[in-house]
């Protein structure tokens, strides 16, 4: 395998956690709920996904339960901000703390103090015959694990749903102008509830992806800011699935380049390489916040009886 082909394959794998977490953020955001608990929910997804897979030997079950616990946190965010109309950022931060604590606690309870680091089997690669033999990009696109394919399908499916169906238009109207949506009979609270729940589930899977595909182990620092980067990516992608995919490619490439450059022994301090993804993101956001078309009601709660909103 050529150097380029292997880099391309790595990049596609590294895209997935960004893509899933960002699509999850986007989904809730398009309905007007801005989550800031990604980093914690992803860590919890990683912990649960790892532990279930470790205990049962089934990574599929691990991923499903990670999605479930992520969904619970997403639902909690939706419920607290629609039914109780609590501040989205404050609730998001509170859930971030709770998820972070829970992730570490679960691992400590199940694994305890262990001399050897427990490991799980990583997801197998599914090679699609013929297509995976295409030179250069064949292996990157068609010799990946199941989640990579699912993430790609999800991005396409979400694009179609949001921009080519009536129901998707309704969803977006809730984030743009909930009052108008409400007057048309679109259930604002219910829309926000299901989008935050589904979004949380995606964040959980994004977290579980890291131990089940990358590292085979769990550490408390495994997410390494990817949850926060996913928020940046969502702005960068203008809250639209097609651009989020493109943005995820950029974020993943930064990740891979930083790692690769370190391994290949380029004469630059490793610390400089390790900050590349974060600094690049900061620079990119200067432009992202100019052009991003953010949902009008993002971060704001809807109160049917309020006169101002």
């Amino acid at each position: 395998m050529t150097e380029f082909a292997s880099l391309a394959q790595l990049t596609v794998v590294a895209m997935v956690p960004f893509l899933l977490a960002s699509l999850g953020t986007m989904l809730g955001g398009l309905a007007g709920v801005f989550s800031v608990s990604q980093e914690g929910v992803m860590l919890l997804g990683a912990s649960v996904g790892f532990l279930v897979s470790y205990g049962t030997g089934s990574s599929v079950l691990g991923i499903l339960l990670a999605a479930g616990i992520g969904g619970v946190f997403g639902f909690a965010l939706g419920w607290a901000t629609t039914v109780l109309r609590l501040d989205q950022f404050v609730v998001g931060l509170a859930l971030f703390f709770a998820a972070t604590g829970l992730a570490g606690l679960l691992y400590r309870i199940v694994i305890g103090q262990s001399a050897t680091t427990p490991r799980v089997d990583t997801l197998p690669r599914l090679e699609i015959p013929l297509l995976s033999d295409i030179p250069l990009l064949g292996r990157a696109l068609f010799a990946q694990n199941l989640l990579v394919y699912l993430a790609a399908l999800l991005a396409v499916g979400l694009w179609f749903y949001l921009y080519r169906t009536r129901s998707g238009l309704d969803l977006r109207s809730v984030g743009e102008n909930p009052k108008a949506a409400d007057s048309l009979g679109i259930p604002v609270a219910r829309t926000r509830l299901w989008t935050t729940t589904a979004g949380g589930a995606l964040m959980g899977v994004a977290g579980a992806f890291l131990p089940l595909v990358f590292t085979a182990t769990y550490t408390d620092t495994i997410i390494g800011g990817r949850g926060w980067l996913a928020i940046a990516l969502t702005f960068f992608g203008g809250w639209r699935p097609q651009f989020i995919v493109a943005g995820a490619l950029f974020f993943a490439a930064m990740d891979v380049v930083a790692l690769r450059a370190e391994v290949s022994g380029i004469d630059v301090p490793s610390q400089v390489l390790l900050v590349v993804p974060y600094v690049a993101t900061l620079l990119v956001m200067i432009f992202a916040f100019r052009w991003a078309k953010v949902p009008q009601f993002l971060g704001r709660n809807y109160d049917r009886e309020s006169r101002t909103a």
Partner: protein
Amino acid sequence: MSAPVLTEEPGAPATASPGIGTRLLRGVLPYVLALVLAFVVSGIVIVALGYDVVGAYRTILTTSFRTGFGFTETLTKWVPLTLLALGFTIPLAVNRFNIGGEGQLLVGATAAAGVGIVHADLPAAVLLPLVIVAGVLSGALWAGIAAFLMGRFRVNEILSTVLLNFVSFQVLDYVATEVWSDPAAGVAATQRVGAGALLPDVGGPPGVHAGILLAVLVTLVTIVVTRRTAAGFELRAAGTNPRAAGINGIRVEKVAVLALITGGALGGLAGALEVSGVHGRALEGMQSNFLLIGIIVGLIARGSALWVPVVAFGIAILEVGASSMQRTVGVPAEMVLIIEALILIFLLLSDVIAGRLARRAA
């Protein structure tokens, strides 16, 4: 995103000032409810895990008071918690979220350690102020990056401050491994600062480093400035009603930028005090989980500078108790982070309930 973050329910009656009963109901009841519920729920979890819940709670709550050492440790933790919490709440008053306390602390600590190492021979009267000023300035500068991006390019400050945390880890790592490294330390750590950069202890034995006096002073100044001065009024006005503030000549964006930089300065101060008072050097992991807990403190205090030091003391007790609980009862220390998060979550929930009760009573 312009609605004030931490004010009462908009639907609350605005006529006449509420009676003492209602004020108590809305002021104290949520805190009591939140504390009780958080401990009950966590207690159920601890029991379900098969640990001794009475022992666990006794350890958590009494460790700080059983020994002088425990109390000293609590006060020592109180310093960075209070400073980071204030660093969070000052920008919060203008509805800006400073999630970068960790980075500001680390960069402040790195700069403080740098000054303390390079000028190790200076007498304390010169070096100590230099070290602290270096920490404060670099913390402010670090937050200043995010503030600049926010003021000039409208980059969301939650993201920029958080991303700068991850950069700061590498800044410290670089300085601690390449510039002034101390290979004997075991973790990435700088050399020790000169004797003149170390803060003396007060009280005791065992004593608390004198940085606590500075932290108390800073807290008092923050309380006075935010509640009793024109600058503080502009800060609160820009937060509660940016439009009205703007119309009345307050430059909301400028206030927000300054608030974020001030928050960073406090983070940097926390870093410098950790170097001068606790570790004697900058080292990897010195930020502990101060950022998370600092934010929890700020939110539980509802952004009030008056309540931050009180809440921070309570949380410091829990934190000191947590490590002791892990040693004696075996409950993982992470449990305490969950208790703290639950206190915050239940506080938010009981706000809603108390608000509804008060409205019904009115």
